[in-house]
């Protein structure tokens, strides 16, 4: 395959890009300048044509989402950039914000022009203090340079962009949970419909897009949808993708590939298995993604291929596990996460995630019974599809995959009344 030139991460490691001038020198803000000369609908069409799918986890067509915003002028429009990035295993948005804030600002500005939004909030998780500070500095300079404010680049288009810090809740990454939190309330997801495109922030039509999604937009405008479509697997899986790989690999980090790179390639690119150990399992797309076994090592990491294999690409947060890993213990930790993060509104998620954590804890500590595997599946069945938002469905992903794909491991815990995998010590004395 021809050498792939990084698109989204081209400015990583270039501190000069943190200033407007430095960013411009690399071709930055050309996309915004070009968009301002296009009709907003034409911008939407270009993004639609590119096949850009949401990079936050849902994989919904970005252009299509933008086209849902009504054209009427009776209500202000908003863009909310989802920088909440709390899916375990995901850290790619942080990289983008800390190293190339103007790329995000430009992407947001183009989107605002396309949907006639005069205000953009970058909802960033509260823990990302450095990224928030970097963005604030970049925004300040953008205002000073006339890129934001009363007349974006002199076009007469008024745009305000602000950073809004969250306060520590994964559920605020859910789009309506985010809107509630933005409005100063508990981040509890809303009943849908109405959808945010109709009733979003402050009762007005709102687009919500992930950081990485928006960072793609300037490049699509500058280099064209056709160029963008040329990257990736097929017309439904296009563009460059950031893969955040962690766990038992030699060089954990964020790597940019055309979407659809195989897991094997991704693993090799990250230095291969940690300490040369054997791959046992991997999560392809964050904590909500069903776990895949080692035999899936050649799977193409795009939306559709991973979905067909019984998992999801999600945020492309890849967690690698070697042969020393206890799958029950790993899933128990994930179910603890979902229990902690459940907002508590709806009954199946509030009670079900709590119950699953308790059952898995029992199993982990050798207090499980033969019926627990079926019990877990039954709980998953009662949560799935019945919860108010997608967190319920997310929580059951890893649990179902544990029971379906690693039944023997559960059985061992029950039979031996103990975890068959010794607790790993990663640091020797004096480390």
């Amino acid at each position, binding site marked *: 395959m021809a050498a792939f030139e990084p698109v989204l991460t081209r400015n990583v490691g270039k501190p000069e890009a943190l200033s407007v001038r430095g960013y411009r020198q690399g071709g930055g803000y050309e996309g915004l300048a070009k968009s301002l000369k296009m009709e907003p609908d034409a911008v939407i069409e270009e993004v639609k044509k590119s096949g850009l799918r949401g990079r936050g986890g849902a994989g919904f067509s970005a252009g299509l989402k933008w086209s849902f915003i009504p054209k009427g002028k009776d209500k202000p429009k908003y863009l909310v950039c989802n920088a909440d990035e709390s899916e375990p295993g995901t850290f790619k948005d942080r990289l983008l914000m800390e190293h190339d804030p103007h790329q995000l600002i430009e992407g947001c500005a183009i989107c605002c022009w396309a949907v006639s939004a005069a205000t953009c909030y970058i909802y960033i998780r509260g823990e990302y203090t450095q990224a928030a500070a970097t963005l604030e500095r970049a925004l300040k300079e953008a205002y000073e340079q006339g890129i934001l404010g009363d007349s974006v680049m002199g076009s007469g288009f008024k745009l305000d962009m602000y950073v809004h810090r969250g306060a520590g*809740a994964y559920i605020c990454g859910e789009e309506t949970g985010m809107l509630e939190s933005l409005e100063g309330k*508990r981040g509890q997801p809303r*009943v849908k419909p109405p959808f945010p495109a109709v009733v979003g922030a402050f009762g007005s039509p709102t687009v919500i897009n992930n950081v990485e999604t928006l960072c793609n937009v300037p490049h699509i405008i500058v280099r064209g949808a056709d160029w963008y479509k040329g990257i990736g697997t097929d017309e439904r899986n296009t563009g460059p993708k950031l893969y955040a790989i962690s766990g038992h690999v030699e060089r954990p980090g964020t790597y940019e590939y055309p979407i659809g790179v195989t897991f094997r390639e991704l693993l090799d690119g990250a230095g291969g298995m940690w300490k040369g150990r054997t791959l046992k399992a991997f999560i392809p797309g964050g904590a909500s993604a069903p776990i895949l076994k080692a035999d899936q090592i050649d799977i193409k990491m795009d939306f559709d291929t991973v979905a067909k294999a019984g998992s999801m690409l999600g945020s492309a947060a890849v967690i690698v596990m070697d042969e020393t890993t206890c799958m029950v213990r790993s899933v128990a930790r994930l179910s603890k996460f979902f*229990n*902690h*993060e*459940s*907002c*508590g*509104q*709806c*009954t*199946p998620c*509030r*009670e*079900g*995630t*709590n*119950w699953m954590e*308790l*059952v898995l804890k*029992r199993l982990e500590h050798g*207090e499980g*019974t033969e019926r627990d595997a079926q*019990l877990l599946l*039954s709980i998953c*069945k*009662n949560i799935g*599809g*019945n*919860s*108010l938002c997608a967190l319920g469905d997310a929580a059951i992903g890893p649990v179902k995959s544990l029971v379906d794909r690693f039944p023997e491991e559960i059985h061992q815990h029950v039979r031996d009344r103990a975890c068959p995998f010794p607790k790993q010590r990663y640091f020797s004395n004096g480390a």
Partner: protein
Amino acid sequence: MPKVTINDRTVEVEAGTNLVDAAMKVGVQIPHYCYHPRLSVVGQCRMCLVKIEGMPKLQAGCSTPVVKDGMVVRTDVPEVAEAQKGMMEFFLLNHPLDCPICDQAGECGLQDYSFKHGVAYSRFQYEDKRTYPGRERIPLGANVLLNMNRCIQCTRCVRFTQEVTKTAELGFFNRGARTEIGTFPGKELNNDLATCVVDICPVGALTSTRFRFAERVFYLDKKPSLCTGCEVGCNITVEHRRGSIKRYKPRFNVDVNDYWMCDYGRSTFELYKTTPRLVTPRVRAEGGNGHSPVTPTSWKDALDAVARRLRGNQETVAFLGSGFLTTEEAYLFGQLADLAGSPHRSVPVDLGDPHTIPRHGQPPISGREAAPNRRGAELAGLAPGIADGKAMTGELLTSDELVHGDGASRCSALVVCDSYFSRAAYDPAVVERLRKAKFLVVFGWADSPLAQAADVALPVATHTEKEGTFVNVEHRVQRFDRAFPAQGQVRPGVEVLSDLLSRFDAKWANLSAGAVFDRLAATVPAFAGLSWHTLPATGAPLHLAGVPGDAIAAETAPGTGIE
């Protein structure tokens, strides 16, 4: 209007109606906890999941509006039953088995749906239930107690204080399985409608301090009635066990009190239980100027004594009415006053703190008068200065002169229509002034100091022991029925007055409250066209053109936080 088909039954509904309400119109009950017609839709409890043709996942009925034709809904399929079972299991997972000690047993949403939609066994065997240590009996205010372990987090109570009373004392705290409801530390839930959260709580998490452990609900007889706390006339249910009232609960009336009633109104039945009652007619021996001994007598003797004194030439006979009289009783008292040729009538009422009830789609209703029927009593014949339908001039002995002045000393006879017409009846100075009348007749249920000072004391029923009508602050006449019979010698006021009046003219004999109402409707213009048997269950507005008196505007209540 769009049509929707639910379990093969099609119905036309207003656009925007949700499926829970639409299903009710065709007799299909979709179980639900968090949904309430007066609260925002949150779709949280997930109990109302239904199958909609063409949609892969089950949908929450409460948050699915009918907007156009063609929706086909099923609740009678295995998928829905499985979901309901699953939800019930989740609800009961961490719920304590408190039924034997929980007030809610018998009217509990978990019990009812468990029976209908749940399973009879628990799979939660090896884990500990989540509890809220130290939150098992927290007074949220004077009238409401919280047991957080029982809460199913439906958030009705929180939304009630945010959206209905707009006082926002309650909040939803923490997250996930630790969510709980409560007040800000140190603050209390003490708004006028606080106990309404107990009504809307589907389980025994919120209980009424007054009703706690008072009675098992399955032993309660429930009879529709009206509250007598003030002039709003909230529709209530009197819940009693063999004549011992255990509580009042509000009854839905969209024109008066919607789904609500105030805490003060709920407390008013206690007066009936703690106030010593008049149990037998009593007559004071003649002579002795009001201080001769009093003896119990028969009804016949008592009424004869009254008739004797009211007949013939009387210089001044005054009638002190009461806002607690039913319209029918007031009408008969008015007739008695007409027979005695007396224009000296009035209906005193105490003024108290305003009680305001928010309503749906109209301004709130509010009342300051601490009795239910001053208006009805005045319209029926006790308005000052009117005798035989004609206005009278000259000096009038109204309640001001009688209660606060020396008017009673100028009376040859004073008929007090209610021994507890106001707090003044318990004021010794007032009793002393009223006792100056030469002949004092007191009707009433309370054995007040005024009744004890009477020459003839006549025991009549409380409003729960009789039927009648009250006219509320908006001039709506509402009918109430008897909750349970009076005991012993006590008789309903209409019966007593009919008996008394028949001694003057046989046309008054053996009248029921209904018959009196119909007569009154034939003569009093405000009631024209109404009849006892056709009075709508939610009451009827009166015709007030040309009637002097207050307008129908409801007052807003300052300082209660209710708009």
